C-alpha cells in the first residue's frame, strides 16, 4: 500500500513539479472535468434562454413585445408557420450568438432594476431598444429574416407590380429587409416626438380647429389620402402646401377636392400644381391613379417643351382631420426663412425668381446632401421656390 502510494506519489511528482501550490495535473484534469460539466450545463442553460418561454418570462416582454406580435402575420398565417422570439432576435451563427447573449445579459440587470417595468417606461425606451435591433439587422443585412425569406427563392412575377418594382430593386442591391420593413412584428416607436418638423409643430397647433365645407385649406405636412371615411390603407400622400377644398365631413375625416394636373403617360401617379409645371401636389399608388371613380378628367394638352401630354384631373379623396392652414402666406413665410438660413450656409442663395419652376427641381436636387432637411421642410422649400420662380413672379430677371 505504501509502495503503491509512493509510486503514485512519484509519478504525481512529475505533474507537480512546476507549481508549488496547485500542480499542472490538477489544473489539467480539473479543467477538463469542469469543461465537460460547464459546457454541457452552459449549452443546456443557453438553449433554455433561446426559448420563447424564457423570453417572455419577464413581464415587460410578455406585456409588450409578445402581445404585439400576436396580431401580425409572423404569429398566425395561412401556412401555420410561426416565428418565435429567438428566430428573429438570436443570431444563428455561434460567435454572433455569443455576442448577442453578452449584450442581452444587460436586459437581465434591466429586469432586476425595473428599467422597463411599466408600460410608460417601456414606451420611453422603445425607440432606443428598437434602434439597437435595427442597427443589428442593418449590420447583418437582416440575416435572421433571410433565413426564411431569401431573395433567390422569390418569384417576383407572383407579386403585385408595385411590390415587384420595390423587391426587384432591393434584390439587385441585396438590400437589408429592415430598411423598409420596420414595425412589422412589434409596434413602431413614436418617432416624431424626437424629429417633429417645424411644419409638424404648426400643424399640431392648428389641431382641433373646425372646418367649413366649401372652404379651401393647405396641408402643412405630408398627409395621407384615403378612399373613404373608414378605409385605413392610404392611397397616396399630399405634399405640404397643397391646396384642397373641403366638400364633406364625416367623423375624423374630411372629404376633399384636389384640382391638379398629371402627365397622361405612364400611370399618372404624380399630381402637379399646374399644366407642365413639375410642382408636386400629391403622389398616388398605381391603383388609385387608375381608379376612375376617384377623379374626373378635364383639359388635355401637350407640353411643347417636353412633348409630354398633360391632363387636368380633379380628385375627390379623404384626409384625416388634422391641423391645416387657411393662409398659404404663413407657410411661405416659414419656407422663405428656412431657405434663406439653410441655403446660405455655403453660398449666396439664388433669388427665387432666378430660375423657372421646373429648373428649380434640378437646382435643388443638386444641393441635397449638403443640408439636412426633414421631408416636410424639403418639400415646402422647393414648392416655395417653384411658386415664386420666374414662372409666377413679376420681378424675375
Amino acid at each position, binding site marked *: 500500500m505504501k509502495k503503491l502510494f509512493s509510486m503514485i506519489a512519484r509519478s504525481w511528482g512529475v505533474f507537480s513539479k512546476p507549481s508549488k501550490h496547485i500542480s499542472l495535473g490538477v489544473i489539467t484534469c480539473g479543467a477538463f472535468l469542469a469543461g465537460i460539466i460547464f459546457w454541457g450545463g452552459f449549452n443546456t442553460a443557453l438553449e433554455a434562454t433561446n426559448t420563447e418561454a424564457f423570453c417572455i418570462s419577464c413581464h415587460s416582454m410578455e406585456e409588450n413585445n409578445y402581445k404585439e406580435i400576436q396580431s401580425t402575420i409572423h404569429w398566425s398565417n395561412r401556412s401555420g408557420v410561426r416565428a418565435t422570439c429567438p428566430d428573429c432576435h438570436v443570431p444563428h451563427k455561434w460567435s454572433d450568438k455569443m455576442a448577442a447573449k453578452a449584450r442581452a445579459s444587460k436586459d437581465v440587470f434591466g429586469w432586476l432594476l425595473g428599467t422597463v417595468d411599466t408600460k410608460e417606461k417601456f414606451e420611453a425606451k422603445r*425607440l432606443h431598444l428598437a434602434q439597437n435591433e435595427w442597427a443589428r439587422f*442593418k449590420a447583418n443585412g437582416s440575416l435572421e429574416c433571410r433565413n426564411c425569406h431569401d431573395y433567390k427563392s422569390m418569384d417576383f412575377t407572383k407579386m403585385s407590380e408595385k411590390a415587384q*418594382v*420595390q423587391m426587384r*430593386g432591393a434584390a*439587385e*442591391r441585396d438590400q437589408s429587409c429592415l430598411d423598409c420593413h420596420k414595425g412589422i412584428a412589434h409596434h413602431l416607436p413614436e418617432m416624431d416626438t*424626437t*424629429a417633429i418638423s417645424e411644419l409638424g409643430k404648426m400643424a399640431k397647433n392648428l389641431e382641433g380647429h373646425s372646418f367649413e365645407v366649401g372652404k379651401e385649406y393647405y396641408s402643412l405636412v405630408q398627409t395621407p389620402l384615403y378612399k373613404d371615411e373608414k378605409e385605413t390603407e392610404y392611397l397616396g400622400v399630399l405634399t405640404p402646401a397643397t391646396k384642397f377644398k373641403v366638400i364633406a365631413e364625416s367623423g375624423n375625416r374630411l372629404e376633399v377636392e384636389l384640382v391638379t394636373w398629371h*402627365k397622361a403617360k*405612364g*400611370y399618372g*401617379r*404624380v399630381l402637379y400644381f399646374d399644366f407642365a409645371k*413639375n410642382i408636386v401636389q400629391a*403622389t398616388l399608388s398605381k391603383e388609385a391613379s387608375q381608379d376612375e371613380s376617384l377623379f374626373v378628367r378635364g383639359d388635355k394638352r401637350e*407640353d*411643347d*417643351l*417636353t*412633348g*409630354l401630354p398633360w391632363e387636368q384631373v380633379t380628385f375627390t379623396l379623404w384626409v384625416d382631420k388634422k391641423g391645416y392652414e387657411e393662409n398659404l402666406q404663413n407657410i411661405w413665410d416659414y419656407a422663405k*426663412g428656412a431657405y*434663406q*438660413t439653410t441655403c*446660405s*450656409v*455655403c*453660398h*449666396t*442663395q*439664388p*433669388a427665387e425668381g*432666378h430660375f423657372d419652376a*421646373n*429648373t428649380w*427641381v*434640378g*437646382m*435643388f*436636387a*443638386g*444641393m*441635397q*446632401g*449638403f443640408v*439636412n432637411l426633414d421631408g416636410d421642410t424639403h418639400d415646402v422649400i422647393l414648392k416655395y421656390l417653384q411658386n415664386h420662380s420666374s414662372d409666377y413672379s413679376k420681378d424675375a*430677371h
Partner: protein
Amino acid sequence: MFNRDKKSKNENVSVSRRSFLKGVMATSAVAVIGPSLLVPNTASAATIAERAEWKLTGSHWGAFRAKIHGGKVTEVKAFELDKYPTDMLKGIEGIIYSPSRVRYPMVRLDWYLNREKSDTKQRGDNRFIRVTWDQALDMFYEELERVQNTYGPSGLHTGANGWRATGQLHSCGSHMARAIAMHGSSVKDVGDYSTGAGQTILPYVLGSTEVYAPGTSWPLILDNSKTIILWATDPVKNLQVGWNCETHDSFEYLEQLKDKVAEKKIRVISVDPVKNKTQNFLGNEHRYINPHTDVPFMLAVAHTMVKEDLHDQKFIDTYALGFDKFLQYVQGETEDKVEKTPEWASEICGVPADEIRDFARLITNGRTQLLFGWSIQRQQHGEQPYWMGAVLATMIGQIGLPGGGISYGHHYSSIGVPSSGAVGAGAFPRNPDSGKPIRHESKDFKGASSTLPVARFVDALQNPGKVIDANGSKITFPDIKMMVFTGCNPWHRHQDRNKMKAAFQKLETVIAIDYNWTATCRFSDIVLPACTQYERNDLDIYGSYRAKGLLGMKKLVDPLFQSKTDFQIFTELTKRWGKSKDYTQGKSEVQWLEQLYNESKDANAGKWEMPDFHEFWKEGYFHFGDGENWTRHADFREDPEVNALGTPSGFIEIYSRKIARFGYEHCKGHPMWFEKEERSHGGPKSDEFPVWMQSCHPDKRLHSQMCESEAFRATYTVQGREPVFMNSADAKKRGIKDGDIVRVFNDRGQLLAGAVVDDNYPVDVIRIQEGAWYGPEDESIGSLCTYGDPNNLTIDIGSSELAQATSANTCQVEFEKFKGKVPAVNSFGGPKEVV
C-alpha cells in the same frame, strides 16, 4: 506614397540653403516624434520645450495637431483619424509665417492721395501706405456710402466668393455678404470657376447639378464594376483637398482599387492626354486622346454602339427622351450632315478607328462606371462633353445600378465615401436678419442685371450696358465702380491677366480682405489684414462632404501683426452706421460657437448623443463614424415616375427642347462637336501656337493657397519659378533642358516658368498648374510674369451662351528657352511700403 515626386529638383532650388533645411527638418521631425510627447507632462517638465502644447485644428488639407512652443506653431502632425494625410500639411506653417502676410491695413498710394479720382493705371504698382484700422474702416464705409449714393446697387460688386479658409463661424464670404447687405444691395455672381459649364448643363440632362452631388459609394463600385473609366480625372491629386476639413477617406478605396487593378479584377482606363498622377498610382491603362476632342471620340463610340447593337434600347425607351434626334445627328442626317464614324473621329481625336470601336465594346461589356473630372468642362463648349458623357451612360443603360452609370464628382471632397448622414455645424448667417432696416433700401439696378455669371465679370467691367445671353436669360451688364473681395483671389482664378488689367483701370475703388498679400491685394486700393484660420476658434465638419465628424478648430496662436478675425472686422465696419449689435445679434464669438454646436447637437439627437459644448471643446472632436452605401439614381431607376429627375420632363434628356429653343449657336438641342477658337494637334491657331497648355488644379497647393508657403514652395519650384511640365521631344526641339527657365507666351501674354521634362506629357501638351501667384514685372499691360501664373495666357471667353463659364483649358501657346537677364520673382513678400 500619394505624393511621389517625379524627381528631385534640389539642384534647382533657389531658396537659401538655411530655409530649405529648416523646411526639411520641420517635416522630418513629424515622423520622428512619437505620440508620447503629445500630452504635456507638467510633472516632469524639466525643460521649456517639454511645456509645449499640442492643439487640434483643421483645414482644407486635413485636420492636424500643432505643437505650440514659444507662442509659435513649431510642428504640425496629421490628425490620427486621417490615415492618408496629404504632403501639403508641411506647408501649413509656411502660410502662417509667410513673408507675404498682410500685416497692417494698407492703402494704395495714389488712391490715398486722390481717392476715387486716382490714376488707376498705377493700380498694380504695389506701392502702398500704411494706415490705422480706424482710418481704413472709415474709408471702407465712406466708399460704400459714396457708391450707394452716387450710383446705387449696380455700382457695387460684392458677389465674388472663393475657397474661404475653413470654419463655419468665421467663413469670410458670409461675413462680408451680411455686413454689406445690411448697408445696401450690390451685384452678385452665379456659378463658379470649377464647374461652371457642368453645373449649368446637367440640370437639363440629368436633373441636377451633379458635380457636387453625393456619388455611388466606393465599396459598391469596387464590388460591382468590371470596368472603370477615369475620364479626364485625377482623384489621387485632387482628393488631397476638401471644401471642408478633409480626412482623406477616399484613399482607402483608391488603395483597394490599385490592388484590384493589379489582380486584374477591375479594368481601369484613364482617358486623358497626359499620364496623370492617378494613373501612375493605380498602374492602370491609358487611353490617349488629343486635347479638346472628347466629343468626337464619344460620338464615334455612340456610332459604334448603335451599329453593333451594343446599346440598351430598353433603358433608353424607359428612362430617356430624344435619342432618335441625337441618332440622326450621329448618322449624319442633320446639322453638319457628317456621319460620326470612328474614321471621322480618328482624324480629330488621334485615336485609331479600331481602338474607338474596341472602346465601345469594352464599356458595354459588363458593369462600367464612368467617372468624369472637371477639366473637360473648363474649356470652350464645356457643356458638350458632359452632356455627351451622360448620353453614353444612358446608352450603356446602367444609370442607377451600383458600379454603373456616371459620376462627375468622385475626385472631389470625399464624394463616394459613404455619408454618415450627420448634421454638421450651421454657419454665421450670410443674410441680414429679416425685419431689420437696411441702410440703403434701394434695389434699383438701373435696368441692369443684379446677378452675373461669375466668369463674365471682366466683360462686364469693360462693357457696361451690354446684353449677353446666359442660360436662357438676357444679362445686362451693370456699370460697376467698386468691388469688394474677401478670401477670394480673382487675380489667380480669372483668365487673361492683361485684359483684366485694362478692365480694372475702369474701377474707382477695389477693397481686398485677406491674410496673405495675393495679386488681388496688389491690384486693390484698400487692403485689410484678416488673420488666418489658425489664429481663431471655429467649428467644421471633417470628412469633408461626407461628414465623418465635427471638429473644434482651436486657435493655435494669436493673430499676427495687426490682423483681425472677419467677425471683428465686420463688427467694426457695421458700427460705422450703428448696426454692429444687429450684425453680431449681440453675441460674442464663443456664444456663436456654442450656438452653432448646439444646433448640430440638437439636430443629431436620437442618432448621436453628443456631449455638451464644453466637453466637446475639451475633447476636440466628435466622431460620427461611417455611413451606409448608396447608389446614385437608384431611386429613379426603380420608379422614374415618382422619383422623376429634375429635368423638364422628369426623364434623362438626350435632346432638350428647352435648350434648343434658346436658339444658341454653341449649345443646341443635343450634344454636338464644335470646333474651338484654338486647338492643338492640327486645330485652329496651332500653326502659330502649336502647344496646348493645360492649367489644371495643382498637386501641391489648393488653387492659389499655399503658394506663399516659402519652404514648401521650394520643394517644387525650378529656379524659384513655377514648373512647366513638358515632353522631352518638345524640350529638345527648343533646346531646353530640365531646370532651364523658359518663356511661355501667346498673343495674350507671357510668363517665365521652370522646365520639368517629363514624358508623362505627350508632344505639344504642357502643364502649368493654376494657382501660381501672379508676379508682373510692373503694372503695364503686357508685362512679363516673373513666377509663372498660367492665367497670363488663358482665354477669357464664355464656354457658350448657355453657361458663360470659364474656358481656361482652351489655350494655345509657344515656349522658348529664356535668354537675357532673368528678373527676380516678385509675386511674394507683400507690398512696397511707402513712408
